[in-house]
């Protein structure tokens, strides 16, 4: 495994007149939890989308696990970016089973374990269209962790969760980190950053600055 899970070099992302990422250079050490704080519209989500290959940088480069990010190819990253979406007519378990069938790295048992870890019942037959927002977010987290990726990109993972849910997910993220996952997350809650993160960055108007 590379020393740095993600290396961003002079990343610039421009949308016509707006600069969303302003020459960002940062290296996220593997095996740690990194937090990014910032106001709405500061560029956090754009940053995550560029790391995942969903957006192309205007200039600069991003390496994940020592390899350049190529938009055409699949990546071994677990993600939650913006509100998670699923096939509404299927149950949570069937949704995850469908996604797991792409890489075919995990068994049904591991899918069920992922659901249990986020506090969802794997036997629940309820369609996702009838899930509460909190349940959808938990399912989103289960989707991100089920294949045990080495890198997790989580954009505001605590959104929609109740107090107990936040505590449970924080605990889960710590466990995943102990198991070797590198986690890069953003949050509006200072407590998430304080409790979880080894390093903390602030994104302001596309400029990323380390603050802790």
């Amino acid at each position, binding site marked *: 495994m590379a020393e740095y899970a993600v290396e961003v070099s002079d990343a610039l992302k421009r949308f016509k007149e707006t600069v969303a990422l302003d020459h960002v250079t940062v290296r996220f050490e593997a095996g740690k939890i990194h937090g990014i704080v910032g106001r709405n519209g500061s560029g956090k989500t754009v940053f995550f*989308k560029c790391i995942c290959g969903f957006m192309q940088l205007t200039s600069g480069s991003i390496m994940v696990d020592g390899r350049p990010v190529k*938009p055409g190819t*699949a990546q071994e990253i677990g993600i939650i970016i913006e*509100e*998670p979406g699923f096939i*509404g007519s299927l149950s949570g378990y069937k949704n995850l089973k469908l*996604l797991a069938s*792409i*890489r075919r790295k995990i068994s049904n048992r591991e899918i069920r374990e992922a659901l249990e870890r986020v506090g969802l019942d794997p036997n629940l037959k309820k369609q996702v269209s009838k899930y509460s927002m909190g349940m959808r977010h938990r399912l989103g987290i289960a989707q991100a962790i089920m294949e045990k990726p080495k890198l997790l990109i989580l954009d505001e993972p605590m959104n929609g969760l109740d107090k107990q849910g936040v505590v449970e997910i924080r605990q889960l993220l710590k466990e995943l980190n102990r198991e070797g996952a590198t986690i890069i997350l953003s949050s509006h809650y200072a407590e998430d950053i304080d409790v979880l993160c080894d390093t903390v960055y602030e994104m302001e108007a596309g400029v990323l600055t380390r603050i802790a």
Partner: protein
Amino acid sequence: MNNLKAILLCALVNFRKWRVNPRIYTLAAATAGFLSWHSAGLSQLSAATGIAVTPWVFPNLLTTTAMIAVFACFIMLFFCDAPFADRHTPFLIIRTGRRNWVIGQLVYIVLAAFTYTVFFLIISVAVLIPNVKWDTDWGKILKTISANPGIGNNYGINLTVFVHPLIVGMFSPIEATIISFGLFWLTSAFIGILILCGNIITGRAGGLVMAGVFLCISFFTEYLGPLTLNGYWIRCLSPINWCAMCCLDWTGRGEWAPPSYAVFSLLVSIFLMSIVSIMVFCKKDINVQKRR
């Protein structure tokens, strides 16, 4: 092999989303309603004469410009949100890669167009029940209408189905149905892929606008054809018309596009637009629609 499985999965996922997509139900209801209205005259004529109509109505449904326009609008409704990216899409793309995902959307359009064509064919027969009777020939009703389009007036019936004498004279019902099925499917896929390609390139509903432009062209070629200099060449630029057998030149008179030209043009256009779609999609930012 893994790529092929990923592509098929990306295509089939869209079918799974049909159950919670109100647009699919709207389209199905609108199609059934339209065919019920369109074929009402046939049923009434059959009841009035006491002669059952044969099930070979499909090749004769889209024989006027207005009906072709209705068909095009249905297909545009079907594929208007191509490339069908929603909040579920990032979870697929991170696992399959962009290339496989967008190829999956192209495969979906072809399969969905086929499914809709089958649906259209089945409903075109179903709406004639109980006045339909199986026969391998065109039957008296359809042959009479082809020879005398105003026959409905004798019974006070407004017939909207126009049976082209060329189709009835040159082809058996089964031949005409198979050819019409192929043309309907191919044109539907063309419209769908045009919308997908245009929407990907413009990042908005540019594809839908392009389809609308072709719809306008198809609406006016019937009238513009005779007015253009040096023949009916403008009809060779109107792919939407090629969904109907009566808008192709089967006899070599030169008033419509030849069938081989139409099929070849549709296939080449579909292929080229698919290549462009894949190339552009792999380089553009992914825009996800806020849809359940």
